[in-house]
């Protein structure tokens, strides 16, 4: 995802000399080509995220379009007040790019994991929150965020995520509009970000058990696609959300609010990471497995719920 991000950003930078990328001393093996091609459009601000967001605000107040890049916790929690006051209150075209959504940085441990960012960013005023599910969605999201008139948050995985969309069959990508990945009459699975692949795998497992699933990519958490969700929930036995994020403030909360506000007559199964986890290190897949975020565990939970 991050390779796609920087490649797409280079396309924007080529057209717009006012586009600036700030990094908090990260991007080794990622930004070298960008720096060589656009030496005046990439600045390493050092390991100082509060200052990085303030500098981004000052640049944006002077007519620049700014992307700021770091690992999720550093570029969200560390500098949250700068994000709120300097970017959101002033409604500036600055896109925060966080790499390492969920347990992507498995081995590096809890400091580098990101399981609260969607919730925190959704509460920020005027903030658009995007969590793409594959490299195509990353590309499209960067292009869309590159013209956004206000602050944005882009949550990336890490690298080598598979392409899940077939570009030939996709018509358009619009921020705030979810995408139906496959159709099925029994249940609807809403997935965001790094869980989109797992959701599709879970749907395939369910199909072998004669359960037909609609799978929808909810790449934008804010604004949420209310109409798309209503259509997806219509006439289904069960609505499921899947996200590589803790239980609070993410996709499950966004969807449950819609269910409550609209009084939807649908059963709801939110699948999230736990609030905390009793593992200090391990691979990305190990953390996912312990958190219950594998296709096997998810499909088993859905089947169990359908039996009730």
């Amino acid at each position: 995802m991050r390779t796609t991000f920087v490649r797409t950003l280079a396309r924007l930078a080529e057209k717009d000399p006012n586009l600036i990328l700030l990094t908090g001393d990260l991007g080794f093996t990622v930004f070298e080509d960008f720096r060589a091609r656009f030496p005046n459009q990439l600045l390493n601000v050092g390991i100082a995220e509060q200052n990085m967001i303030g500098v981004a605000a000052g640049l944006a107040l002077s007519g620049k379009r700014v992307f700021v890049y770091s690992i999720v916790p550093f570029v969200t929690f560390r500098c949250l007040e700068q994000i709120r006051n300097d970017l959101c209150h002033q409604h500036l075209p600055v896109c925060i790019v966080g790499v390492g959504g969920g347990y992507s940085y498995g081995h590096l441990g809890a400091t580098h994991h990101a399981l609260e960012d969607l919730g925190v960013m959704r509460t920020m005023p005027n903030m658009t929150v995007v969590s793409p599910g594959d490299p195509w969605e990353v590309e499209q999201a960067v292009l869309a965020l590159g013209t956004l008139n206000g602050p944005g948050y882009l949550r990336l995985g890490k690298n080598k995520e598979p392409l899940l969309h077939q570009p030939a069959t996709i018509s358009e990508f619009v921020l705030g509009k979810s995408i139906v990945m496959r159709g099925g009459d029994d249940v609807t699975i809403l997935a965001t970000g790094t869980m989109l692949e797992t959701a599709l795998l879970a749907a395939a497992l369910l199909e072998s058990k004669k359960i037909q699933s609609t799978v929808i990519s909810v790449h934008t958490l804010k604004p949420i696609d209310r109409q798309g969700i209503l259509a997806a929930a219509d006439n289904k036995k069960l609505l499921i959300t899947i996200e590589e994020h803790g239980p609070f403030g993410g996709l499950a909360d966004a969807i449950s609010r819609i269910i409550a506000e609209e009084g939807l007559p649908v059963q709801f199964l939110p699948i999230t990471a736990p609030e905390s986890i009793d593992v200090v290190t391990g691979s990305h897949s190990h953390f996912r497995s312990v958190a219950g975020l594998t296709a096997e565990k998810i499909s088993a939970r859905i089947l169990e719920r359908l039996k009730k």
Partner: protein
Amino acid sequence: MPSSLHPRSAKELCNLQYSLRRDILTMAHRSKTGHIGSAFSVIDILINAYFGHLKYDPKHPLAPDRDRLILSKGHACAALYAVLAEAGFFPKQELETYLQDGSRLAGHPHLGSPPGTEASTGSLGHGLSIGTGMALAAKLDERDNKTVVVISDGECDEGAVWEAALTARQWKLSSLTCIIDYNKIQAFGRTEDVVNLEPFADKWRSFGWRVLETDGHDCTALLSALKQSIEPSDQPMAIIAHTIKGKGVSFMENTIDWHYWSPSDEHFKKAMIELSPSPMPQ
């Protein structure tokens, strides 16, 4: 859009030191709010910046080539509003709406509200980073406009100030000036008792900044310091302005109380007499 200087004579500047203090006193009295000590501490810095140093056109408050000033110690915004009104960014009469429901004049400055407000501030430690970004943009765009950020002494407890100080030096932002309103009193004590900043000038010097110390209420000294800030250099400039909290009203000077208190009718009358136009004791 030609930006223009708005120089005032020495006598006019001196008169502004009185008249704008009266404006601030009236705002604080009418709204029954505090922070008057902070506003009196910083007002002479703002007067000399706006009427002897910065280029701007109040008819075009967003002109790209304007000089910019960020009041990072946003709680002293009554002083900023008085200066912006005097400079013509909005009608002076609007000062009467300070802190009223629906007014553009809030208890901390909000971007563009009133016009001439360059950034939303109020949480300390944000302004120098924003100013660093503005000065960086000017450098990238090869504009020669100046960026001035006014911070408080207590604000220097915030780590983000020093993050910004490091990068401004790294990027050789010589068009950036940070003025520290050093009145040596912060919200709940004297700076030397809370978090001592001394040796203060040495700290800025060691971060690679040019440093000047000046009397923060003397127009000649302030104008001279501001003038030196734009001399050719590859370093940003820190001006440590030695000030007195509550300066101009004897019973408000150098006390913590007037960080919080609002002037009663009696205070108001007494202070107005002290702020009547006669030469300011330096």
